[in-house]
């Protein structure tokens, strides 16, 4: 039997970080997604130890300030895309305001670290969410396009096709057939 799971990554990681840090006896405070403050002085060698400790969960301690900033931008984008009430300003303005830094600066840092632009990353996230909705809900394309704040179904379809090279329905069909195929092979 195959069981399909859906994770809440932020919650999952937060729980792991809390558990591990408490286990090691640190005093700390979780600030936001992917960020926490030690409430005591921690020597560098301890930090190395912690890095190794977290590695098995795929959690990295990001030393680089730019990486931290990029992670914050990404978090902001995910939050913006998944929010039920879309921001009433342009996303560039929204992100700049949210992080209190100039968009030009954010943009250049983001491209440098991730090989892609903020705009493109937003699209990737939106399409990712669209994929999720196509597969896991009964929403039709019109409903999805409204949910994701697209001006029309055609707009969503075009962007989906530009991003994945296929239409939303082709995507849905392939995923369904693949599940059928793997189920058949496993049973």
């Amino acid at each position, binding site marked *: 039997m195959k069981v399909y799971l859906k994770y809440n*990554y932020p919650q999952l990681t937060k729980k792991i970080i809390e558990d591990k840090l408490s286990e090691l006896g640190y005093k700390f405070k979780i600030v936001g997604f992917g960020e926490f403050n030690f409430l005591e002085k921690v020597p560098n060698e301890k930090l190395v130890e912690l890095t190794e400790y977290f590695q098995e969960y795929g959690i*990295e301690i990001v030393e680089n300030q730019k*990486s931290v900033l990029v992670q914050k931008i*990404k978090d902001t984008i995910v939050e913006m895309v998944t929010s039920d009430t879309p921001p009433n300003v342009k996303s560039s303005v929204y992100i700049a305001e949210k992080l209190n830094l100039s968009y030009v600066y954010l943009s250049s840092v983001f491209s440098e670290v*991730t*090989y*892609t632009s903020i705009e493109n*990353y937003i699209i*990737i*996230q939106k399409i*990712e969410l669209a*994929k*999720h909705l196509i*597969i896991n809900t009964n929403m039709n394309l019109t409903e999805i396009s409204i949910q994701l704040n697209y001006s029309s179904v055609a707009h969503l379809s075009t962007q989906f096709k530009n*991003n*994945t*090279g*296929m239409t939303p329905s*082709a*995507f849905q*069909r*392939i*995923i369904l*057939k*693949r599940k059928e*195929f*793997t189920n058949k092979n496993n049973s």
Partner: protein
Amino acid sequence: MTEDYINICLADDDQDDRLFFTDAFDELKIRTKVSTFNDGVELMNYLNNADSILPNVLFLDLNMPKKNGVECLSEIKRNEKFNDIAIAIYSTSSSEEHIEETFINGANIYIKKPNDFETLKKILSEVVTINWQYHTSGLNKDNFLMRM
């Protein structure tokens, strides 16, 4: 970032295509390490070697002697060790049935070999970039499907 390079593998029996491929990555400003293989058997030998560094993205030509792309794809999909590898089919064929079949068999990306070098560069850059996003942003890899 713990990895300095994005590891890329290509299995293609055509020498010119391998040349275009490596040249394209050379000209792209992405830190990549590209290894090429002449056929499916060579590729699988490499992947199954415990010392080998597994690629982030694997490009598979469909039409190869000894072991073709579809056979490699099935073999890779059967082995959990290779779960993290994104598989890109790299082929001349543009038959819809063909494309759908490889996707159903577990391919993530289908690339129809382009007819000019600049397009090739653009496609490879896009593939690596988007794969990088899947790799770094916790996107659901099961939903990673792309046609170029």
